[in-house]
């Protein structure tokens, strides 16, 4: 297992500012993602999460630095990195099958129409949309549209799946079901996933690691939190696990205060090339209060970097 299947190496993204200068969204950003891991990036709106994902997708280029995937520098978009867009981005003039088949035929230009459709149908079935193949996006609910987006991305069997707040526009119930399915599919296939969210519970349920990004401009990766919950966790009983509250509180605390104050208290020994890897400690059962209690926060963290 490569420790750095995806590697952001000192990337920066700057935009021209209205006053004639430049705004730095982030700079000197280093981040590694191991193969087969599900990584979530959380941070406040506007801190540069989408920018980061678009750079990895190849849709945007860094102003400085490079991104390596599997040891090779990326240059533009690739079929190896499939994107699930925030606003599903389905082509409205194509049916469900047409949308997925479009991706399949891009991946396999030599396949016959029948082969392409059979392949596409396999992935439509995987996301539970069997029977809706011939509907157009306008006839689908928000959740179904996002399922098509997921089927389209998975159908090209990418090395990396990129998701930009894929469930943020959905109602809680639909969001839960889709999270379950994405987690099931990604675990079954050992998919490497880079996902953006600002929903802490989504990150806790889905992610193996949670990357914490501070507020912009000049956002930084404060740390990467290793999810201590067991891999066979269920969405509905996450909160029963003793590590749940320490982890959740740590993430919330980051979003509420540290994302804002981090820049003023940057540890002297901080090496931007190696953001600390943090694992919230599971409290000893005797000391652990019942669910909902106030768990200790920063103290329970052991910096293992």
């Amino acid at each position, binding site marked *: 297992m490569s420790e750095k299947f995806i590697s952001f190496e000192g990337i920066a993204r700057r935009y021209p500012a209205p006053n004639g200068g430049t705004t730095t969204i982030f700079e000197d950003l280093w981040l590694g993602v191991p193969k087969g891991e599900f990584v979530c990036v959380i941070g406040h709106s506007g801190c540069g999460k989408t920018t980061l994902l678009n750079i990895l*997708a*190849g*849709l945007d280029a860094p102003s400085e630095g490079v991104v390596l995937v599997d040891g090779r520098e990326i240059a*533009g*978009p*690739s*079929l190896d*990195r*499939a*994107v699930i*867009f925030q*606003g599903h*981005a389905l*082509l*409205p*003039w194509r049916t469900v099958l047409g949308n997925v088949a*479009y*991706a399949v035929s*891009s*991946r396999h230009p030599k396949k016959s129409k029948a082969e392409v459709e059979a392949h596409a149908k396999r992935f439509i079935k995987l996301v539970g949309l069997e029977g809706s193949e011939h509907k*157009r*996006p*306008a006839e689908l609910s928000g959740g179904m549209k996002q399922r098509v987006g997921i089927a389209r991305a998975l159908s*090209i069997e990418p090395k990396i799946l990129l998701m930009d707040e894929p469930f943020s526009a959905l109602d809680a119930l639909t969001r839960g079901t889709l999270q379950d399915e994405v987690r099931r599919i990604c675990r079954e296939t050992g998919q490497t996933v880079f996902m953006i969210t600002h929903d802490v519970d989504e990150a806790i349920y889905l992610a193996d690691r949670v990357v914490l990004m501070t507020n912009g401009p000049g956002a930084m990766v404060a740390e990467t939190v290793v999810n201590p919950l067991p891999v066979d966790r269920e969405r509905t009983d996450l909160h029963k696990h003793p590590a749940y509250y320490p982890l959740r509180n740590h993430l919330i605390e980051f979003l509420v205060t540290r994302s804002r104050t981090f820049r003023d208290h940057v540890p002297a020994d901080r090496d931007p090339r190696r953001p600390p890897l943090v694992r919230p400690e599971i409290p000893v059962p005797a000391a652990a209060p019942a669910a909902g209690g106030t768990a200790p926060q920063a103290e329970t963290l052991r910096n293992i970097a």
Partner: protein
Amino acid sequence: MNLSIGTRASALSAVILVVFLLAWHVATQGSTAGGPPMDPEYAKLMGLTATTGKSAMPGPLDVGAKLLEHLSRPFYDNGPNDKGIGIQLGWSIARVAAGYGLAALVAIPLGFVIGMSPLLSRAFDPFIQILKPVSPLAWMPLALYTIKDSGASAIFVIFICSVWPMLVNTAFGVASVRKEWLNVARTLEVGPWRRAFTVILPAAAPTILTGMRISIGIAWLVIVAAEMLVGGTGIGYFVWNEWNNLSITNVITAILVIGMVGMLLDRMLAVAARAVTFPE
């Protein structure tokens, strides 16, 4: 009354039509007796109709009869100044089809290229802005002088008036394709030609069709005027010729027929536009 708005609108349309026809009928029944004495020169010019007491203006019954007569024999041909209305319409439609078709062949590909390139878009903009508001008939002398053929000049005038809405709309439709859809194509490594035909064209099609619909409307307006100028054949020439024959009945009949054909052309493009428009 719980009739749908559609039914009520149709009923109201029928009432308006009946009232209009009645008013028209009554207005054209009256004699000229009460009016001021007619200028003898004018009376001579207007011939019999003006002096027989009956109004020179035909009533709805005359026009209806004429319309039936034309529709029953649309394609007769008794020499250059006496052809069936079907033949004249055929000429006009053929000219519009030729000019409009040529315009589409030029405007849609050119608009596509302009829409894809911000540089070309800016470079072409001043020319489009200046040429677009020019009345197409202003081109007529230039066309007659250079082409030296009246039929081809009429087609050129149709071409020049149809080209602008299609060009502008195609460029706009292509330039405003949703970024997301283009990004889908980019992440799937779709090549430029496939992207043009599978993403940009379908996305821009409703806007392009809107331009085509505006163009056909303008072309049909302009063909009547153009044919009045160049003469020979066509529904515009028919109107002019019947005015010279002082057959107001034929002129009104022609107006009705021109309106109906125009509506039909517009409907056709509306149907086409609906076929390429998909809600999200």
